[in-house]
């Protein structure tokens, strides 16, 4: 059997990839996908911990996270359309009316 730590390391790597992607990607859609990757990394660790503690709740949490992520995705994509309509670009470097 695969030990639980493997899953945890994998979930950590997924989360890390998401963070790095968030920081270095320039396209809003890619950034958004990185966030989804982070959430899925978290989901994996929920399932792994659920197996470790023999608690079903961990698996139910994944459902909840998935639904929340879907709601977030719908809203996010809608906002992205609104930005695109106003600016005709999805590059974060050009979405710069507000100085950061």
């Amino acid at each position, binding site marked *: 059997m695969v030990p639980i730590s493997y899953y945890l390391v994998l979930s950590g790597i997924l*989360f890390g990839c998401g963070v790095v992607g968030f920081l270095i990607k320039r396209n809003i859609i890619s950034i958004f996908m990185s966030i989804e990757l982070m959430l899925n990394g978290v989901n994996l660790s*929920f399932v792994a911990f659920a197996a470790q503690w023999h*608690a079903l709740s961990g698996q*139910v949490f994944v459902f909840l996270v998935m639904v929340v992520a879907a709601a977030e995705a719908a809203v996010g994509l809608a906002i992205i359309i*609104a*930005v695109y309509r106003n600016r005709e670009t999805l590059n974060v470097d050009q979405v710069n009316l507000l100085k950061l």
Partner: protein
Amino acid sequence: MNPGGESMQTLPLGVDYIRFLPEIVLSIFGMIVMVLDPLVDEQRSQKHLGMVALLGTLTALAATLLMSQYPGSAFWNMIQVDSFSVFFHFLVIAVAALVILSSYEYMTVQRIRAGEYYGLILFGAVGMALMSSAVELVLIFIALEISSISTYILAGFRRREAISSESSIKYFLLGSFATAFFLYGVALMFGATGSTSIWQISQVLHSRVPLLAYVATAFMFVGLGFKVASAPFHVWTPDVYEGAPAPIVGLMSTGPKAAVFAVLLRIFFQANAPGRFWLIWVSAALSMTLGNVAALVQTNIKRLLAYSSIAHAGYLLIAFAVPQTAIADTGISSAMFYTVAYAAMNVGAFAVVSHLAGAGEHRVELEDYAGLGRRSPLLAATLTIFLLSLIGIPMTGGFFAKFYVFSAALKANLVVLTIIGVINSAIGAYYYLRVIVLMYMREPREETALPRVPIGVGITLAITAITTICLGLFPGRVVNYSLRSAHELVHPEMSATDIRRPSVIR
């Protein structure tokens, strides 16, 4: 819930629903607004939807009163009704009501004709209210998302302005990034303790503190720190506040923040999440310093108030650094008092800003406030009250808020942090006073007549100004109430008896 053939006493009782009533009421009214919106005539204004939403918040306040009569836990220990959660329920629902009131005319001026606006405020209030009573980390996550997703949309509501949708996308991306961190923290806490219930976490952490719990706390703090705009996670704040509609900034700088502070209090003081001291210390010191220094050079009133809100998050965080001993009560209650005082003055200040901003929000530069004292003495006087309170002048709520936080910190021997706080208050006074000086000492840039103050904004300003002054003159009742809540938060076994039911599905 224990599926192993145990009797079905696990089904929720009627009283469970009473303990959840404010959220139910707000959701129902939110849905009514959403359903009515497509049904009303497109050309008509959406004012009556605003009335429905306002009615919803008032009903929810009544429901909170009813809820406060039934303290205890509900839905398998996922919700805890104690005076702490009642306190924050009142606060966030009142903030939502005031924001609805002050948006009333604003929507007409900005030519936004969409009733969803009010529905989203109500849904946001559901999330904020739920955050304060949830004692289950995953439920807290869901509540956090309900409130965040609503505010993401609300931030972009001036859809004709590129600046508003840009603010929305920034808030959305950074906010979701932060939520992912919080969620990872929750997962790690689940891994470290085998539970996501604040109760069971606290019990496990009482006997042993796994290393993973420290990591989990740090991750959760990063996520929540983003939401309350504390440094070094504050970069989004000025941009988002500048682009979002002004009444909504009044909402998101107070309501969700208060709720997230409630969550932080529960996680730190009720679940005993370990290793908070240095996290808080560094973040508080950085927030105060960066916020105040950056605010000195701002020329836009919304950005100025954004940096000021970062600084205030810093002052508030000082109260979180008190140790988990007898002093904890003082720290928690001072933080609670601070959220109320800050909510009153900030909602009021942003109501003034949203009224003066005019169509397209073009008048938000500091220069536009020059000579306001002559053009509209009453409005200037009200704004002055809020600004003085933000400085922390005696006789205003802001004074006692700072006073209690600093004295709690001194009791806990946090001398350095207190000194940083006091120095920053002095720096902060400069930029608030600059606005007051502009209003009273300078000639107005343009002599056009100001629009009359509409009744909604008028009521909001009256309520917030009176609250600010009352908190400054008679803070006793709020302080006593918050002390009692703090005591219940730290020693829950004295207040509620039925909280020990197991809640993990095994």
